[in-house]
């Protein structure tokens, strides 16, 4: 399967890494040869129809900071949409940085690929949280595969889990801890009794929180994911704007202590159901499935037949998130065979 990777940050690199690591395994077990025919980042791109060397690509990025420095075939300033026009590929892997204002350039990448009859796999929350219906409609119209397991919960299976493993169930609502940064901060505050500001600083020093933590701590990241889940799993038609969002920046050690006294933890919970779309700090019973610690993500789906089903896993990480991309690629491969 020929893939074009647009975006070569943490997730893009993770994808290249995973492809290199699993090359033999994929060939032996699935008869799948993932050929990276193009890769691009903000510097430009590189096209090579016979397949780029994943390790060389990674090293180039590591040493030169740009994929356009790939020896022999890198082109500085090469535009991503041009790559999609010129390259002969089967599936687009769209892993450019998330833009929650308008979802670009990812939205254009995905639509262009689909209109050209290509399958798409993405981890990019932006276009999914803002223009889900448009993308879904385009995929159906163009009869292509549209997969985005990596966009919610990182390595934790949730999208495919709901559609495939719980097929036949009516999913009534979803509750989840969908942001590792905030879950880590709240867990630490509960354990240490420390203040929010202090704990955030620590998290930033450890690389668990970004330098600009706004999207995480104000619940926007989780809100994107809830919108995606509502659209995909609950068949609603919503965008990020319809989600009621409240972050964790107002949580105090006193409130956590009061909750603890009653046997509760405070967690940032995303909730989606037929009439609720919300991300907010909530009281969670100690010992209940939602009481996970650290950077873990967790989702509980309330169904009619299977009642409550929960999944947990690593919500972020380069290789972890790439594992979800690989899972989607394999799904496409097996569907098309």
């Amino acid at each position, binding site marked *: 399967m020929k893939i074009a990777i647009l975006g070569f940050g943490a997730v893009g690199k993770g994808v290249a890494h995973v492809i290199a690591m699993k090359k033999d395994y994929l060939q032996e077990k699935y008869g799948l040869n993932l050929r990276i025919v193009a890769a691009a980042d903000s510097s430009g791109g590189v096209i090579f129809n016979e397949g780029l060397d994943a390790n060389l690509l990674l090293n180039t990025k590591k040493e030169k900071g740009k994929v356009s420095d790939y020896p022999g075939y890198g082109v500085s300033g090469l535009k991503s949409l041009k790559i999609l026009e010129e390259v002969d590929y089967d599936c687009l892997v769209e892993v450019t940085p998330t833009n929650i204002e308008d979802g670009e350039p990812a939205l254009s990448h995905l639509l262009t690929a689909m209109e050209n009859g290509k399958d798409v796999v993405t981890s990019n929350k932006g276009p999914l949280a803002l223009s889900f219906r448009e993308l879904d409609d385009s995929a159906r119209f163009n009869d292509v595969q549209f997969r985005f397991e990596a966009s919610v919960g990182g390595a934790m299976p949730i999208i495919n889990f709901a559609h495939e493993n719980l097929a036949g169930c009516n999913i009534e609502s979803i509750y989840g801890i969908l942001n590792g940064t905030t879950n880590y901060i709240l867990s630490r505050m509960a354990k240490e009794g420390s203040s929010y500001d202090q704990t955030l600083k620590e998290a930033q020093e450890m690389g668990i929180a970004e330098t600009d933590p706004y999207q995480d701590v104000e619940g926007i990241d989780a809100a994107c994911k809830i919108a995606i889940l509502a659209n995909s799993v609950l068949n609603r038609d919503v965008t990020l704007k319809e989600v009621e969002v409240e972050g964790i920046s*107002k*949580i*105090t050690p*006193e*409130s956590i202590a009061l909750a603890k006294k009653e046997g509760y933890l*405070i967690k940032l919970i995303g909730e989606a159901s037929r009439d609720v779309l919300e991300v*907010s700090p*909530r009281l969670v*019973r100690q010992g209940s499935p939602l009481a996970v610690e650290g950077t873990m993500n967790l989702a509980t789906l309330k169904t009619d037949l299977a009642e409550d089903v929960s999944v947990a896993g690593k919500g972020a990480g380069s290789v972890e998130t790439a594992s979800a991309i690989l899972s989607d690629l394999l799904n496409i491969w097996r569907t098309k065979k």
Partner: protein
Amino acid sequence: MRLNLVLELIDVPGQLLDALKPMGKLGANIVAVIHQRDVKTERGTIPVQITIEGDKETLDRVMESIEESGIQLVSVDGVLRKEQIITILVGNIVGEDVQDTLARLNHLEGVRVADLDLKMSDPPENSATKIIIEADYGQKKKILKKIKEIGNQKGLLVINEV
């Protein structure tokens, strides 16, 4: 002695029988049963009105068995059962008039503020308050929504249970 009970049954075959059998077995007389399978509550459950007759001990035993069975008891002789709701408010609750906040909560239908625990902090904007409310059975969702409204109006962060 007679008791008028309202139970809530899940829409699954055999539920009504499971509810009535123990009553008869314990010696209570089943005087009336009103069961309309087409009428469903917002929770998707089916309300059943059952009037039972017996002496006090028998009726007490029937009430116990209902508690143990896990079948939802909604009201006894028109008195709605209570459920507990816990919420934590963060912010300058004292500055935003605690009395008014409590009054507005108590004013909600079927609500009684049962417990309040206030942790003052310096600055007062970081104060936290735990409030435990006893509410009529089945009203939880509505009440949690109202608590959020009251909190939002006062600029307080409302942390409701899941």
